């Protein structure tokens, strides 16, 4: 019954019209297209709501005062819920980092590529293996064979430039986007700032 009703209602064209869509086909497709556009455009707000909200984004940069960090000292600052290592390197540490043969590294990077000013090393303090926080910030911490950082979880060892030298981690410690606002004031996460 449904078929016979549909066929007789197939407006305009006879049911035998070959290769041509009927007006009903057009209406059917047009309605479906409008519905699909509506559903997709409504789906986006429901997906986007899970992205970081405005108040979270507003807290996505952190200013760090480094005026009190003496040579050889390091501080750890929370930025976007993660620790940021800021190390005021000694001339020996800088020399050590620059002397490394880049070709031997697992994740080849020169020390100059990892710093803006050689005395200040700024890194995200999260091991690139599985996300633990490496030791090495405190003078009493183990620093590993390369005098940098040592991850207690699975034994990854980083040098004085934060590059991976030994252990399971695949990459060097990540360098966040940062700028020197003044000589003693760092702004970390500056890429998120529109101005």
């Amino acid at each position, binding site marked *: *019954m*449904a078929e*016979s*009703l*549909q066929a007789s209602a197939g407006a305009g064209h006879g049911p035998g019209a070959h290769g041509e869509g009927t007006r009903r086909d057009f209406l059917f497709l047009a*309605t479906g297209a409008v519905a699909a556009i509506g559903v997709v455009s409504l789906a*986006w*707000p*429901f997906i*986007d*709501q*899970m*992205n970081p*909200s*405005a*108040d*979270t984004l507003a807290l996505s940069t952190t200013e760090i005062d480094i005026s009190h960090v003496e040579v050889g000292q390091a501080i750890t600052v929370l930025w976007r819920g993660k620790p940021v290592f800021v190390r005021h390197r000694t001339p020996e540490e800088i020399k050590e980092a620059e002397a490394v043969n880049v070709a031997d590294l697992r994740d080849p990077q020169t020390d100059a590529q990892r710093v803006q000013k050689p005395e200040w090393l700024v890194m995200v303090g999260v091991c690139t293996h599985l996300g633990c926080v490496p030791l090495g910030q405190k003078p009493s911490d183990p620093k590993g064979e390369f005098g940098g950082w040592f991850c207690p979880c699975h034994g990854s060892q980083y040098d004085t430039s934060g590059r991976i030298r030994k252990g399971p981690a695949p990459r060097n410690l990540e360098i966040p986007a940062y700028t020197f606002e003044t000589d003693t004031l760092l702004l970390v996460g500056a890429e998120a700032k529109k101005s």
Partner: protein
Amino acid sequence: MSTPKFKNPIVRWIDYRLPIFSFLDHEMHEYPTPKNLNYWWNFGSLAGLMLVIMIVSGIVLAMHYTPHVSMAFNSVEHIMRDVNYGWLIRYIHMNGGSMFFIVVYIHIFRGLYYGSYKKPRELLWMIGVVILLLMMATAFMGYVLPWGQMSFWGATVITNLFSAIPIVGKYIVSWLWGGFSIDNPTLNRFFSLHYLLPFVIVGVVVLHVLALHKHGSNNPLGIDTKGPQDSIPFHPYYTVKDYFGVGVFLIFYAALVFFSPNFFGEPDNYIPANPMATPTHIVPEWYFLPFYAILRAVPDIWFIEAKLGGVIAMFGSILLLFVLPWLDHSPVRSARFRPTYKWFFWILLVDCLVLGWVGANPPDALFHGVPFVVIGRIATAWYFIHFLIVLPLLGFFEKPRPLPTSISEPVLKGGGKLAGATAKPMEKA
């Protein structure tokens, strides 16, 4: 079933083991539906759509909301200002409550007009009343969550209803509160239940649809389908009609969300809850206004004090609907063939609107010199007279108009003779 129903071999493989496709095909495709349903029959599927919209938008809101007295209000503002499209999702949910009740009230009055609660659909109707009660509880608790002034004082007033119960009342109230007033424990449990109850509603809706599909939809003539010539398959005929209704409905809904999102809201609810100061004029959401009017209408009667009387009347006005199939014992379903009932139906509708209007006004205010409480009493009395006196008497005294012999008859012959010939034209299909 000798010829396989489905062409797709994967569908056939699954269906042989788990007949989900046969079930869907049976209930949503070939499901025979009376061919004379009018647009008032769209509101069932619209209610289903609203339930889905409310659950989806509600789950999203719960991702950003904090059910704590010191953070709830601010977390709602966080949703409005900070969360991506949070304003849109909250307005969808907030106005969705109103839209849900509009749709369901129309659905209920459609049932009243066309006698959809009569044999064999009594349980279908009663399950529907259960859904209404669950919706009311869910809506009430949801309104508390933003923790504004109306949230707090509405919750205070409604939970205090239970204190009217003799002897155990005050224990029930402190049990509901989890303390000595509406406070953090209350907010937490309301949030928990507000999240739970919609899924309970889904379960009861499944029962509602099961009961519906046992005997099929009622129809504007209120007579049973006599055979295949009286029905058409649900798909595509009613899917397309429902789909059209959804389009019109969503235009209305979207207009509210985008152009007047606070139309149904109370400005006082944008003031954080303050247990030290009650707003001067507390009103519930519009969909509770008729019941609120009934609550306030009852005076001291004999040994029942007004407070208890009001609570009994308010709950009674809904519980009454459970026995409606037996109060209205007229064998004729549709008001089209009940000349007297038709009038009483419209009077009842006006009566409910009057109750809503009274509920929105302070009880001691005057309308052309008449206190609203007096209007409320008359309207409340009529509500009960309608169900408890008018309907049972109509069953005895009303003389219904003659019913058509089949659904096809008035369609094909303008409501006249020719009972035998009606079936023929469609039968060859």
